């Protein structure tokens, strides 16, 4: 395949997200402007100007009309996807790290980093149907985990919130009361910071990637460890194919060590694993730095990777990808 290279960002990529139909690709980077691209040919549709810090995460509503972004400028912003205009700004006292719309787009979970002696926290916000009625009040605030919470997403039926972060523990919270329901086991769970978390299409299971050079597949309801994928690089990003039983892990040597080594030694490929057999299927090379973000097109026929090198690479699979035999 010949990937499409998109050089819209001047700083490392942080997050990638497809909309539901898979025709738009949203990219966030440490420069201040999230960008939206057409996912088929990589043409830039627009940028969302207004943040004043690195943008860590984004999510798009099911109808692809509303975008939420979380930034290190201590805000999360709602945007009109079509025009790029700001609809609302949630202000926080610390950088926001992750954002995720609930099923139905009426709620949003936002996590904030520990900052100036404030602990990290998970906020649940109500998203108004009409942006003019939007308020910044939190429906629920959860505190507790030590260190940064790198990702928080909604569990099945919006009943739970799944969070993971620097303390390497995956937690499931009650989204009504904020009570801690389940916690991953120290022995079987990750040993180092969990960097990324991706849900399956049906939400029944999710995948976490960690700096302990592994990715783990968990059941969303019971938090039982289903599978472990071991690789030889720290994992920064994970994605699951909606079409085939494949998972993709991206990562590589820490960016601060990269300059001293050969490109190949950095292990900057996106690695494909068989979801069930846990066997490596292959690697896709290309980035000149670690991969920070991965996203699978909802149709399963292409995927995008974003790297520390500032490039988004859009890969449309060749037909032989679909009949790989192990």
């Amino acid at each position, binding site marked *: 395949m010949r*990937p499409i*290279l998109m050089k819209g960002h001047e700083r490392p990529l942080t997050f990638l997200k497809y909309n539901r*139909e898979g*025709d738009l690709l949203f990219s966030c980077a440490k420069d201040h402007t999230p960008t939206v691209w057409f996912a088929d040919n*990589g043409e*830039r*549709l*627009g940028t969302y100007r207004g943040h004043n810090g690195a943008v860590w995460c984004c999510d798009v509503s099911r109808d692809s009309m509303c975008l939420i972004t979380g930034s290190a400028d201590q805000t999360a912003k709602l945007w009109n996807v079509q025009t790029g205009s700001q609809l609302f700004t949630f202000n926080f006292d610390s950088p926001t790290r992750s954002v995720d719309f609930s099923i139905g787009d009426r709620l949003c979970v936002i996590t904030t980093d520990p900052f100036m002696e404030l602990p990290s926290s998970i906020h649940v916000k109500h998203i108004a149907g009409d942006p003019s009625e939007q308020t910044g009040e939190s429906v629920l605030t959860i505190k507790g985990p030590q260190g940064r919470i790198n990702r928080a997403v909604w569990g099945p039926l919006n009943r739970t919130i799944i969070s993971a972060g620097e303390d390497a523990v995956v937690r499931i919270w009650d989204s009504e009361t904020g009570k801690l329901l389940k916690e991953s086991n120290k022995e079987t769970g990750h040993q180092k910071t969990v960097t990324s978390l991706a849900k399956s299409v049906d939400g029944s299971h999710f995948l976490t990637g960690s700096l302990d050079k592994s990715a783990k597949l968990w059941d969303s309801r019971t938090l039982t460890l289903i599978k472990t994928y071991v690789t030889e690089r720290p994992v920064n990003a994970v994605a699951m194919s909606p079409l085939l039983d494949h998972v993709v892990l991206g990562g590589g040597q820490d960016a601060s060590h990269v300059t001293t080594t050969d490109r190949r030694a950095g292990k900057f490929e996106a690695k494909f694993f068989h979801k069930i057999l846990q066997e490596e*299927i292959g*690697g896709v090379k290309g980035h000149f730095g670690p991969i920070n973000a991965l996203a699978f097109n909802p149709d399963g026929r292409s995927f995008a990777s974003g790297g520390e090198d500032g490039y988004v690479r859009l890969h449309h699979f060749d037909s032989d990808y679909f009949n790989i035999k192990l």
Partner: protein
Amino acid sequence: MATAMDRPVSYNAPQSNKVRWGELDEDDGEDLDFLLPPRMVIGPDENGVKKVIEYKFNEDGNKVKITTTTRTRKLAKARLSKRALERRAWPKFGDAVHEEVGSRLTMVSTEEIILERPRAPGSKAEESKAAGDPLAQLGKGGAGAVLMVCRTCGKKGDHWTSRCPYKDLAAPSEGFVDKPASETTAPASGTTKGAYVPPGMRGGAAERGSAPDRRRNEENSVRVTNLSEDTREPDLLELFRTFGPVSRVYVAVDQKTSVSRGFGFVNFVNKDDAERAINKLNGYGYDNLILRVEWATPRAN
């Protein structure tokens, strides 16, 4: 819906020369088109073949009939939702509005990127066989230990050459005749007294060196050609083990594309078995191809 045009088949056929230069006014050269029959479009028929028949004047003023035959094929059914199509028409916004023409934000990679398989497909089975099986068989004893033949004492299925208990008694192998047999067991530092000794000359190198020797052992080696691309080492082993104990199976795989190159080698423990295999399997239809099985000729060097 994506369409693609097959190479248009066109031919020019001078049809008639009824109109002559002399009969025309010089200045109405462009207005002659009314003399031409109208453009005709035939099809597209059920195969997607469409014919367009046009007439025009060529440089010499001759009327020319041009038939263009094209075939339209559906390449893929792209299921674009209505909403997605709508979004396609959205105007650009933000920084994308005044994008410089030469900014080239989106480029198609000049490099062909392939999904690199971690190892050549099929070779994994052999790897694990080389690493796991012999050890397992060591434990099990003689049962099925067909792969293990000691080249020092010639005993089958009991131990590897390097672990031969009679190693010291046997004559040292040809490659290391200048070395006393006992030296192979002594550590390198003991014999060299600090001088640099290339790895190949160090004590213990004999053992290490013996591994590639064993691999390259060309005794009773059978070459199999015209293999289908799907044939892997386990398949070959299955095919050939019926004739007798097999010590090595190898299928050549292109390192870049990790596609089988269509030939391989099978080493038998016994020459008779190899001979029988050649007699039986040469010309044998395997997968969709006819195998060619023959004695492997040793390499030129």
